[in-house]
């Protein structure tokens, strides 16, 4: 059986897999990192988005063997070791950008890549278009868009804290 060596959330793993094993199957079934979800079988929903070398990718549309030597970050690897959340995670909570939570890990991973690829900030329309690869059935995206805008401001130093304006 083929073997693949990859780094996931800072830890190096060598795993035996079938050639047909997808990265998401390796993460969920071999490494028991079940925060990365599978919501469709046509590469559209984005519940499985993780980072490979900092780029967001769909873990359901890449073979585990294609990840030889890769550096993978999943939702479980975002918070600091002391538990401090990534600003994007915090923003999702602050802006009520999640309901059932199923799309959330992929949405957060996509959002971070989106912000990182727009160092000058993003318009609302750019955020909406940037989420083309992620589906959410609960929120109507309204609060997701707000959360990402707020997190972008914090990540890029335009704002010091995420807190919403008083209601």
């Amino acid at each position: 059986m083929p073997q693949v060596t990859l780094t996931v959330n800072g830890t190096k793993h060598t795993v035996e897999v079938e050639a047909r094993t997808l990265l998401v199957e390796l993460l969920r079934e071999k490494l028991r990192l079940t925060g990365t979800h599978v919501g469709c079988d046509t590469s559209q929903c984005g519940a499985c988005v993780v980072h490979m070398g900092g780029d967001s990718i769909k873990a359901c549309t890449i073979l585990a063997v294609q990840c030889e030597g890769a550096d993978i970050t999943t939702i479980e690897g975002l918070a600091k070791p002391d538990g401090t959340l990534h600003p994007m995670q915090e923003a999702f909570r602050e802006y009520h950008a999640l309901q059932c939570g199923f799309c959330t890990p992929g949405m957060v991973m996509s959002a971070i890549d989106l912000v990182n690829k727009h160092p000058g900030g993003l318009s609302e329309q750019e955020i909406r278009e940037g989420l083309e690869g992620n589906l959410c059935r609960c929120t109507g995206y309204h609060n997701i868009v707000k959360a990402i805008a707020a997190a972008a401001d914090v990540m890029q130093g335009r704002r010091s804290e995420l807190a919403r304006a008083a209601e």
Partner: protein
Amino acid sequence: MYDFAYHKPSSVADAVKLLAADPDARAISGGMTLLPALKLRLNKPTAVVDLSGIAELRGVKREGGTIVVGALTKHYEVATSAEIKAAIPALAWMASTIGDTQVRNRGTMGGSVANNDPSADYPAALLALGATIQTDKRKIGADDFFQGMFATALDTGEIVTAIHIPVPEKAGYAKMKNPASRYSMAGVFVARGPAGVRVGVNGAGANGAFRATAMEAALAANWSPDAVASIKMDPAMMNGDIHGSAEYRAHLVTVMAKRAVANAG
């Protein structure tokens, strides 16, 4: 998906050897089309040959009046390449609209070209720009390379290694996305350059990407959105489905052509 053998050669020569030895092996680069098909068990290759370890297939460079794009160049790299943005901004912009962010982070120009999906973006652009597709054994003009839906001039086991694109004077792209899949439902790439005035169309055609010659003639005489506004495409040449009839797609091609010319400036 069905299981298969996996190979990751580090040179084109090795890849060609692997593919030649097994006619049921499939090459993979980004895998953005192949993997979804494998997951649905629509394909049963005996082996998958991963081209991503072949360094010689990478990189974008300008050689005189031509941009040379290595086959493994990802859509995101095309969209952000300083060379491409300077020389063919319409192509960079088009790449920024392919699929979603995650597709652009994995999918490659070579893979898209070799697959020739009728609703893929690149084939129309390469037709319009008069590009040349370089393989491990020859160079093929875009007009000869794209041969209808999922059909190309590639022989079994032949690998696209690079795409040579003459730098145009002007080029523009516009598309209407399929509301569900977000693939192109009708996309038009217009260019005026060394290869003359050319118009490539994706998404809409019943037999894959094609050139809209009547529009080319009109634009050659008068490069303006109005020039194509009255040109009606033949619905008989178009694809129809639950998202739109052939008549609708024919109409969209005209609308997108106008917008592409406007975008080209």
